[in-house]
Each structure stands twice: as structure tokens, then as C-alpha cells.
């Protein structure tokens, strides 16, 4: 199988290269006398440097979730960019953004026109989850969490009398830092060699849940990941064909592969005094691919292709399966994880007539799991022997066919039809042997005026599954497990889209979608769901110096699911409705080319209703709500030709209600020692003042 795939890759590459030889150049004018003496090709350098100070009030983990601006006080506001070029054709540029925040970005590019280009980039990605969380655990080295020496165990959090004085704050946050080196070398007009190396590190603290039978604890989980990625290859670009050959490899490494934690509860069995959690093991993914396009000699056709073959492996050492001295589960070596990933695809686009266009695609994605199955005697939550069980492996082959055709009936009317079919074939260990999804749709577009366009698209889909195979499931699982993923389903959907440029200055667009899913033959799992979305924008730009816009959106998602408490019992149902809407507006003004002001306002609300039926007593959950208001003012004043004053103000107010977190402190739930995270809430003011200085032309 592997050799056939390799042959396919080589055949595709050779064929594309041969096709490219056939190019016949159209007549080209002799431009040797075009001197471009009036062209102001820049030489020398120019740069813009922005430096100043910002001050945040009311910031916390919620407001600084992705920017890292998570505490009040001053911070450095600094950006810079620049570029240079020599007469000999060497050039370079640099860019630094948000240098004073963990979300900083930097890049440097250097190259020679027509020869090569090198760039180095850095991107920080902070992720702040909670700064109000507390835990009695202390970290002792990497991967070990212990309780204070005076800890008093109990079978309930209320009985842990040393809990309150033992609690210490722990911030649930992490930072990802990615460095990447990109290189391109232009060996000729048609050949380019390229390579990318990136190194990404993620460190910090996350949340892991763990339990001793039914007594659970939330742990501060160490995050210490790094990923190295390489992509290298060659690109050939002929006039009639192209080919891209690439090798890519990605190696994930976790410095901490296990987390030991002491049991804060009275042990269910005397030896169960600690737990051991497995953290993500190292893995690697390597792939080779050939892709490209061939221009067909008829109907303005284009054929795109992709062939890719790769292997996903995992050789991380097994951690001990239990902390129990009397009954450890020790597996020697590692899993030897070995999964073949293969992808093949062909796309075809044809225009048989000026009014008619057709597109089609066939693709195959395979996940072939060769990992050995292991018969393992396992221990339940470091407390009790659980029996012996064979590890399941999951593989699948997915084949997808798509096609569509568009026909312009009149200059002002167009219609089209299309459809797709997806067939997934599962490996023998699974409850299904196959799943088939079919979908068909049609649309019509009217453009009665050049500036007015209305499109209506409607369609339906059907999903069918093979019979369930209960023998593939463990004895204690319901045969209808995973019913939702595989449930036979009917889907209807409708999309409306309109755009109207009332004048060159005034435009309006609206987009609405709706879909309804009904699950046939389903007594359990999701029975029906509905989705409605509407978005609209009105923009007015009467003149270059100023423009305004207003926009809004509305979404409503609704689902009904049924479940059985025990086999044969009457099903209970849960209905959930989710509502989300936004309104916003903004504008830009420029006065005398010196003063520029930009204002934006956004209001967003969400509501989530959950109801259980039929359940005795209260059936409605309290509403989960979020509310966001942000106002941003951004103003620049051109002091001199080289110096600009920049003032930015942001006010953001966010509140939320969440029944899963609200009022749940470490001791609130008798059998859950929680970290005590509360719903996000912040009232943020940010003021930034900086000077922008321009150097060079």
C-alpha cells in the first residue's frame, strides 16, 4: 500500500512537470526600451516608531484573556515598523506590535529581489483563564502536588477543617511563544525552494479534574509543552501547470508526562492516598505531499490535485497505572502508536459556455490505525482493580464527492444546483461499519440593478448509518452509545443574502440562515435542533475624510435531547435555547488631514435557557447570561510632518451569570474540591498615550 502511494506521488509530480513543458508563450511585447525612468523606486530606509505609556484600570484575567493585559497599572505602549531597500535590489523590513504586552508580535524580513527572502517572526499568545482560583495543593517540583503537612482528610469538603487556612491563590493561565524562520530561494523564474522552521513553547497552569471513585478534585495542572515544526519543499510554476512538493514534520514534546497528587479525602481503601494522572505524551507527525494544478486545453478548465501520505506516531513511555503498592499496573516501554494518514483529492473547474460553469471535487481521507491493541489490567482511580480490557483502536476511510453547476439565465439572473456525498467507513472495532451523508441544494441570484443583489439558497440533507454493532462495545455500555454522532438525520436549510449599494457612499448588506435537523429513529440522544442567524450592516462613506456604519446580528440555537436513566426506563428530555445578539456602530473622521478620530461601540448579549422534562420539582435552570459593552476611541494628531500624537481610550464592561460556577467555592460541593473559579466580570478602562515618530521618506 505504501509503495503504491509513493508511486502515485511520483506519478503526479512527473506528470505535472511534463505538462508544464508544453507551455506555448503568447506574443509578448518587447519591453526592452521601457526604462521606467519616472518610477520612484525607493532607496534608503524609512521607519515609524511609536512609544508611550498606557494605563489599565479594572483589568483581570477575563479582560486580558488573549491580550495578557490582566492587571491594573501602567504598561509600555510600543510599536515600530520600517523598511529599507538598496539600489542593488536588497530589501528588508521589520514590524513590532504590542511590544509591551504578552500578545506582542515581531517580524524581520530580509531579501534580494528575485533571489531569496528570509523572515523571522515571533508571536506571543497569552491565555488567561482565572485569577480568582485557590487550591490547598503545593507544587513540589514538576508534576507533584502535595497537601500541607497539617492537612486533615475527610470524606467531605465540609469536614476538611484545614481547607480554609490552606488555600492559596493559583492563577490559571499559560503563555504560548512561537518563533518561526521562513526562507524562500528563487532558483529560476519557475522554481522556488522554500523552508519553514518554527518552535513553539507553551507554559503555565491549566485545570485537570481527577477523582477517587466519586470524590473529585480540581488540580492546577502544569503545562510545559514545546512543538517543533519543519516544512520544506519545492514549488514549480509553469504557465499551464504547477507543482508543489513538500515534506512536513511536527514534533510535540511535553516536559511533564505525569502528575502525582495527594488524596485530600479519607481513602476508600487504605492504600489509596494519592493519584497519578497521565499528561499528554510526546508525539510526532510526518507527511509528504504533492499538489498543484493543470490548465486543461478545453472549456477553460483547471484540474487541481493533492496527494499526501504521512504517519502519526507516539512513543511516550507509559506512566505507572496506579499508585497502589499492592496492585500497580506496569506496562513496559511505550504504546508504539502508529497511524497512517493519507489524503488524495482532485478538483475540476470547467466553463463549457460563457453562461455555464461547473465544479467538482473528489477526495479521500484515510486514518489507518496500526497501533497494537493491548490487554490491560487497569485500576479504577487509584483505588480498586477494574478488570482487564483490550484497548480499542479507531480508524476510518472518508470519501467525499462534491459537484455544482451555475448558469447565468439572464444578465440579471443566475441559478445553480449542487450536492455532495460523504461516505465514512469505520474500522471493525467500532459500533458502525459505515455512515453516509447526502446533501443537495439549489440557489437563485437576482441582480435587477447593478448595485442590488439578492440570493436565496435552499437545500436538504440526509444521513444514514449502518446497523449498530453492540458487540463492539464493552459489556457495561449502552448499545446506543454514540447515538448522536451516528444518528440518522434529516436536515433542511435556507440561506438569504442581500447586498445593496444604494450609492457609492451608502451600502447595506444582510445575511440570514436557518436550518432544522430532525433525527430519525432516535429514541435517545439529540432528537431535533434548529438554528437561526441574521446579520446586517449599513455603511455610509460620503467622502474620504469620514464614514460611519451600524451593524447587528441575531442568533438563536435550539436543541432537544432525550436520555435514559437506565435501559428500559422512560426517557427524560432536555431542551436548550441559546440566544445571542449584537448591535454596534462606529465611524471615522479626518479633519484638515491633521486630526483623525475613530470611534467604535459594540454591545453583545447572550442568554442560555435550559429546561429538563419531565423532572419533578424545578425544571428550569437559572439563565446563563453574558453582557458586553465596549467603546473604543482612537485618535491621532499630526503635530509635524514627522511627529504624530496618538491617544487611545477603551472602556469595556462585561458581566456574566453561570450556574455551573456561581457560588461554587472549594468547600461548596461535598465531593468536589473545586478551585472556586467564578463567572467572568470586569469593568475595564484603558488609556494609552504615545508619540509616533517617522524617520526617512
Amino acid at each position, binding site marked *: 500500500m505504501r509503495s503504491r502511494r509513493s508511486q502515485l506521488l511520483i506519478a503526479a509530480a512527473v506528470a505535472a512537470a511534463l505538462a508544464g513543458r508544453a507551455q506555448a508563450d503568447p506574443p509578448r511585447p518587447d519591453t526592452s526600451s521601457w526604462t521606467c525612468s519616472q518610477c520612484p523606486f525607493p532607496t534608503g530606509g524609512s521607519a515609524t516608531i511609536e512609544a508611550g505609556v498606557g494605563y489599565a484600570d479594572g483589568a483581570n484575567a477575563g479582560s486580558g484573556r488573549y491580550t495578557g493585559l490582566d492587571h491594573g497599572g501602567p504598561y509600555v505602549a510600543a510599536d515600530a515598523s520600517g523598511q529599507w531597500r538598496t539600489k542593488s535590489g536588497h530589501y528588508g523590513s521589520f514590524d513590532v506590535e504590542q511590544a509591551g504586552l504578552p500578545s506582542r508580535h515581531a517580524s524581520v524580513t530580509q531579501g534580494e529581489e528575485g533571489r531569496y527572502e528570509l523572515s523571522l517572526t515571533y508571536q506571543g499568545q497569552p491565555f488567561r483563564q482565572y485569577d480568582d482560583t485557590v487550591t490547598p495543593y503545593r507544587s513540589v517540583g514538576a508534576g507533584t502536588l502535595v497537601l500541607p503537612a497539617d492537612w486533615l482528610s475527610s470524606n467531605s469538603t465540609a469536614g476538611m477543617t484545614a481547607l480554609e487556612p490552606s488555600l492559596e491563590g493559583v492563577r490559571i493561565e499559560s503563555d504560548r511563544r512561537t518563533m518561526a524562520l521562513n526562507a524562500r530561494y528563487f532558483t529560476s523564474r519557475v522554481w522556488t525552494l522554500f523552508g519553514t522552521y518554527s518552535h513553539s513553547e507553551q507554559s503555565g497552569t491549566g485545570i485537570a479534574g481527577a477523582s477517587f471513585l466519586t470524590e473529585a478534585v480540581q488540580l492546577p495542572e502544569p503545562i510545559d509543552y514545546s512543538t517543533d515544526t519543519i516544512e520544506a519543499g519545492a514549488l514549480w510554476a509553469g504557465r499551464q501547470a504547477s507543482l508543489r512538493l513538500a515534506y512536513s514534520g511536527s514534533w510535540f514534546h511535553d516536559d511533564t508526562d505525569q502528575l502525582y497528587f495527594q488524596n485530600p479525602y479519607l481513602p476508600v481503601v487504605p492504600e489509596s492516598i494519592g493519584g497519578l494522572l*497521565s499528561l499528554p505524551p510526546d508525539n510526532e507527525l510526518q507527511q509528504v505531499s504533492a499538489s498543484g494544478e493543470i490548465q486543461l486545453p478545453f472549456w477553460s478548465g483547471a484540474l487541481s490535485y493533492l496527494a499526501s501520505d504521512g504517519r502519526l506516531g507516539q512513543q511516550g513511555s507509559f506512566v505507572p497505572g496506579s499508585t497502589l503498592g499492592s496492585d500497580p499496573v506496569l506496562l513496559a516501554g511505550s504504546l508504539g502508536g502508529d497511524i497512517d494518514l493519507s489524503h488524495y483529492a482532485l478538483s475540476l473547474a470547467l466553463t463549457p459556455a460563457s453562461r455555464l460553469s461547473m465544479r467538482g471535487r473528489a477526495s479521500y481521507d484515510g486514518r489507518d490505525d496500526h497501533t497494537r491493541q493491548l490487554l490491560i489490567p487497569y485500576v479504577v482511580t487509584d483505588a480498586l482493580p477494574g478488570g482487564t480490557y483490550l484497548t480499542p483502536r479507531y480508524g476510518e476511510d472518508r470519501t467525499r464527492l462534491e459537484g455544482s453547476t451555475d448558469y447565468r439565465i439572464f444578465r440579471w439572473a443566475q441559478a445553480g444546483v449542487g450536492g455532495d456525498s460523504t461516505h465514512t467507513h469505520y474500522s471493525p472495532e467500532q459500533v458502525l461499519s459505515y455512515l453516509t451523508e447526502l446533501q443537495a441544494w439549489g440557489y437563485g441570484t437576482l441582480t435587477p440593478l447593478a448595485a442590488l443583489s439578492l440570493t436565496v439558497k435552499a437545500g436538504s440533507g440526509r444521513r444514514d448509518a449502518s446497523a449498530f454493532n453492540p458487540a463492539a462495545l464493552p459489556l*457495561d455500555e449502552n448499545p446506543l452509545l454514540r447515538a448522536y454522532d451516528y444518528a440518522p438525520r434529516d436536515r433542511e436549510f435556507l440561506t438569504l443574502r442581500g447586498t445593496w449599494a444604494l450609492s457609492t457612499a451608502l451600502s447595506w448588506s444582510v445575511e440570514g440562515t436557518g436550518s432544522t435537523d430532525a433525527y430519525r429513529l432516535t429514541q435517545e440522544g439529540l432528537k431535533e435542533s434548529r438554528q437561526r442567524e441574521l*446579520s446586517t450592516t449599513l455603511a455610509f462613506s460620503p467622502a474620504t475624510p469620514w464614514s460611519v456604519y451600524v451593524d447587528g446580528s441575531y442568533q438563536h440555537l435550539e436543541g432537544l435531547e432525550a436520555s435514559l436513566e437506565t435501559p428500559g426506563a422512560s426517557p427524560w428530555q432536555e431542551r436548550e435555547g441559546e440566544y445571542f445578539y449584537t448591535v454596534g456602530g462606529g465611524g471615522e473622521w479626518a479633519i484638515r488631514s491633521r486630526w483623525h478620530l475613530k470611534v467604535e461601540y459594540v454591545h453583545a448579549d447572550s442568554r442560555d435557557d435550559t429546561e429538563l422534562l419531565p423532572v419533578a420539582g424545578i425544571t428550569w435552570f437559572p439563565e446563563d447570561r453574558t453582557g458586553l459593552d465596549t467603546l473604543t476611541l482612537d485618535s491621532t494628531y499630526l503635530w509635524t510632518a514627522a511627529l504624530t500624537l496618538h491617544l487611545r481610550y477603551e472602556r469595556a464592561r462585561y458581566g456574566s451569570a453561570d450556574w455551573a460556577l456561581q457560588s461554587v467555592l472549594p468547600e461548596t460541593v461535598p*465531593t468536589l474540591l473545586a478551585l472556586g473559579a467564578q463567572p467572568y466580570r470586569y469593568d475595564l478602562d484603558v488609556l494609552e498615550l504615545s508619540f509616533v515618530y517617522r524617520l526617512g521618506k
Partner: protein
Amino acid sequence: MPTAGVRAALGSCIALATLVLAAQAWGAAAQTTPAAPPANSPAALGYSEHGADTCLMCHRGDARLMTIFRTAHARPGDPRGPFGPGGLQCEACHGPGGAHVKSFGMKPAGIVIFGSHSPTPVAQQNSMCLSCHRADVGHAWAASAHAANEVSCAACHQIHSVSDPVREQATQAAVCGKCHQAVAADFIKPFHHPVPEGTMACASCHDPHGSTARAMLVKSTLNETCTSCHAELRGPFLWEHQPVTDDCDNCHTPHGSVQPALLTERPPMLCQECHDAAGHPSVPYGPQGLPGMPAGMPNPYLLVGGCVNCHSQVHGSNSPSGRALMR
């Protein structure tokens, strides 16, 4: 497997189709006798007499156009670029401008004008861009959703600007959001990928120029796209969770959600869509399990993380005792 045949057929198609087409093209090339054009002067072929120098006689006063000379499209040393040796300069993109010049600029006269509201058909606009960029960004363009919907390159790109907003990570989402309004609204939801904050871009996951994957993903499948960043979830694990290996969107929604962790629904209800009457009973955990409820007791199966309070290794476990994804 039934699909093994399909896979073989599809693979064979790739090789066969390309070989046949290559052979045809090779033959056609062999029969073509290179002949000198009757007149290869620019004027004879409809171009201006002096290229950009002609254009700049009128257009050099437009500062917005002149910034092209500070972009990659105007590098005189790059033989691949319009302004490189032998390049057609302005007319490489805007087409032959001889007639436009003869009309003293009074008529467009076949000049290709770019933009969403341009009189030049979108296909013609895009063919100018693709004549150079087909290989590096556009080899899957022809069958892409953007091509099918007649989106012009200039609807997204600002060619004459020093900085093209759609190529900048911090500003890209605003460009995409002009059309994809519902997705733009998703990113305002409380839980989203950091696209509005500018540390990710739409192009981190999607290839706007087309790909052979669904939703124009940058990788061949959704899972390979997601795990290119979330590599710790890539596995393979000793104990796997089938919906995870199948498709990330069985539980997560990519753009934005009102549920934590971009989930499609809140646990335990999300888990109970599949897991009912299994292991321990699928109890309808009701509001009685919330703190402060009369005659109720705070319920660990409902509060905080719900099921993941115990089954935290939902993406897979490498512990020998991780069968129930609890270790």
C-alpha cells in the same frame, strides 16, 4: 473495505489524468513551430509606447496609486514581478493600455479596473492576478467557494497599499468579516479563538484561495488543522475517545461559543447526548443540584466542569488505567 477500491480508483485518477494531459500538452508543444511574431513592438500589440513612464504622465499625482512603488509588486530587480526586467509594468495587471492612451485617458478602452464594483468582469480581473500567482497561492482557486461566488482578488486585497490589511494578522478578520458577518459576530461571543485580539488570523485555519479540504481548511482534515496548534491532543493515545479521533466539531464549535472551551453545549448535557444509561446511570441532573436550592445538594456531576470533574482526559489518556479517561 468497500472504500479501498474507491481509494485506489481516486489515486489512479490523479496519476492517469495528469499523465494523459501531460502527453497531450507535450504533443501540442512538439507541433508548435516557434515563429517570430509579426510585430512585437508594444504598440503593435496594443500596449503603450513606454510602459509605466506613459502611465505616470497622468497618474503620478495620485498618491494612493504611487504607493505601489513601495510594495513587492514594484521591485525592479525581480524578474518575476511586473517591474522586473522585461516586465509589462502597470500593464502586466491592467492590460494593454495603448487605446486608453490614444483616447487621452478619456475612455477605459479595455483597461482592467480592479475592485468589487469594477466594470471589468471578475473572471477577467482574477485572470490577471492568477497569471502570476496561480502556483503560489492559487492552485486550488478554480474550484474554491470564493471563485464560485465570483469574489475578485481586489475585493480582499489592496494591491497599491504599502500594507495590505488582509495580509496583516491584526487586521485580516475585519476584511473577511465584511462578507462573513455571522462568523464575525461569533467572534464577539464570550469564548472564541483569539482572532479579534490579533494573535491569530482567519488564515491560520482557512486558505482563502481554496484548498482541497472542506471549508477551505489549511490542512486536509479538521482534526489535522486543529492539532497543528493543539499538538498535545494529537495522540495517538493508549485509550482514545472515538468522537475525538473522528472530528473535533463533534463537541466544539470553532469560531465562538457562549459555552466555555468553545463547546457546542454545556456538560453534562453535551456528554449525555451520547452517554446515556451507560456506566453510571444517565441521571437528569436538574436545578436542584445548584448551590442554595432548598432540599437539594450541590451536585458534582452538574457543577463546574460536570463530567470532566472526573473524566478530565476526554481527549485521550496514555495511562494504563485511563480506560474511563479519568487518569
